């Protein structure tokens, strides 16, 4: 997997919600190499604090135009700096990085479970998966957030024409409750499914347990602090089962962020 370190040019800042922005960057090698589930490490400015680059999932990529985009919300100094980058300036970018979602070709229904800010890689995955579907194959999107206005990537999901079911903690849109309840209901429907999920680790743990219990193939994209994003620091450790029945730590940035659910050891 080839990765590139380059200054990507800011093409556009697109407002996508109350505090949600799509940043479109021009970086042809990354736009061409990106696979859904992968991420980039960004550095808007050379600052000592914030010190680390931050990982962002790729939301969409247009290889022809050489652009890709990420979706983010302004939370503290780092994302504030990102939001201030003028059009035409550059953001130091390293990517595409990490593992990616792999379509389970045996499944008839691909269930994408997005929790809050976990939606971007699934938007990208859905967009790439949709045109490859065979007849009888379908995509079901389950999206959850605390409130209706925190739902992310709805435009992308709707544009696909796929079925979308929504859950909000406060019931302000769709089902009132967790998205994992929607998943449980969907898995009870008699159709051979595969699950692809991204969201808070708590949610992923629940998703993994639901799927493992039912023998449903499931890939999850994990969150971990990432000092380097490139495999050298071992800071992003994820405990996994080893074939010999033991356990070891893998790197969320390199062997992950997408793992097979049954591989992960939850503690």
């Amino acid at each position, binding site marked *: 997997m080839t990765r590139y370190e380059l200054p990507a040019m800011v093409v556009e800042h697109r407002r996508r919600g109350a505090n949600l922005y799509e940043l479109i960057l021009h970086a042809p090698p990354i736009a061409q190499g990106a696979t859904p589930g992968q991420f980039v490490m960004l550095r808007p400015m050379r600052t000592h604090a914030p*010190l680390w680059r931050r990982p962002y999932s790729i939301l969409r990529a247009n290889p022809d135009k050489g652009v890709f985009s990420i979706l983010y919300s302004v939370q503290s100094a780092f994302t504030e700096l990102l939001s201030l980058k003028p059009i035409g300036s550059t953001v130091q970018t390293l990517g595409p990085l990490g593992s990616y979602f792999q379509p389970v070709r045996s499944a008839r229904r691909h269930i994408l479970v997005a929790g809050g800010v976990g939606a971007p890689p699934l938007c990208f995955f859905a967009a790439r998966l949709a045109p490859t579907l065979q007849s009888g194959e379908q995509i079901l999107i389950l999206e959850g957030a605390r409130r209706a206005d925190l739902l992310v990537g709805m435009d992308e999901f709707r544009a696909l024409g796929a079925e979308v079911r929504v859950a909000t903690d406060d019931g302000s849109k769709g089902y009132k409750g967790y998205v994992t309840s929607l998943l449980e209901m969907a898995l009870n429907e008699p159709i051979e499914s595969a699950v692809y999920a991204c969201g808070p680790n708590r949610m992923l743990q629940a998703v993994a347990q639901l799927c493992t219990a039912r023998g449903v193939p499931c890939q999850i994209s994990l969150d971990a602090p990432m000092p380097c994003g490139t495999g050298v620091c071992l800071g992003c450790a994820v405990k996994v089962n080893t074939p010999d029945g033991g356990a070891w730590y893998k790197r969320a940035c390199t062997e992950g962020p997408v793992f097979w659910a049954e591989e992960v050891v939850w503690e």
Partner: protein
Amino acid sequence: MTPDLSVALGRLRLRNPVMVAAGTFGYGLDYRDLVDLTQLGAIVTKSLTLAPRMGNPPPRVAETPAGMLNAIGLQNDGVEAFILETLPRLREYGTPIVASVAGETIEEYVQVAMKLSRAEGVAALELNLSCPNQARGGMEYGVHPELTAQVVAAVRQATDLPLIAKLSPNVGDITPIAQAAVQAGADILCLINTVLGVAVDARTRQFRLASKVGGLSGPAVKPIALYHLWRVRQSLPETPLIGVGGISSVDDALEFILLGAHAVQIGTANYVQPTLAQEVAQGLAAYLQENGIDSVTAIRGTVR
């Protein structure tokens, strides 16, 4: 005229004084797609232990103001895997390879050092003295002059390679420890390893690291590293020193060299900018050229 960047730390000769620090550049090959390894002064490997080590549970890292805490817990594949799988490919780059040696017991340090000394292509050994000493409740070896001397002397017996002792900053006065290391046979001193620190997540009300305590590194610690370097420089004017701690620019590297470092190591900054070490080497050359200085050794230790 191109300025001369080469330096000699006793028997260890480097084409330029900019090394990458232990634990911040993988085993040495991980960045080969992004970094021109032939441009580095030397590559220090992740610390190697006798058996593979799993390391500490996550979270292992936390960002702090201009720094980070880590408690990786020496996760590594073990010295044999390094010798078999990495070393043969790494030595092809021709860049001096410094193997970082870790152990929970003095015996383990010695075993690891012996294996590395027998392998082909290791230019020097660096003793990570910040390892937890099991016999003393996990205290770092490097905070006691006698323990430091014991580890260094034992490894000195076991190897003919140039021996670098990497000192811990978690001491009141670093000079007796530096002296003990040199008297026990260290050829070169490297300082500093990480500074002990804690971070708490005020929202979840938990330690940010599963191990509670971690090691602080990054730009935040640079003044501390310079302080210890300056003290050791005064106390041991003849010993080759490697400065490390918070270097993230040419000027940072110059600060250490001006205070008397023969070479420098770049650690945490590799995570943020993998190409930094090669750029710092180039930048040193440019600095010397601009100032009409013909070799990096000419400015070493000129700030007193």
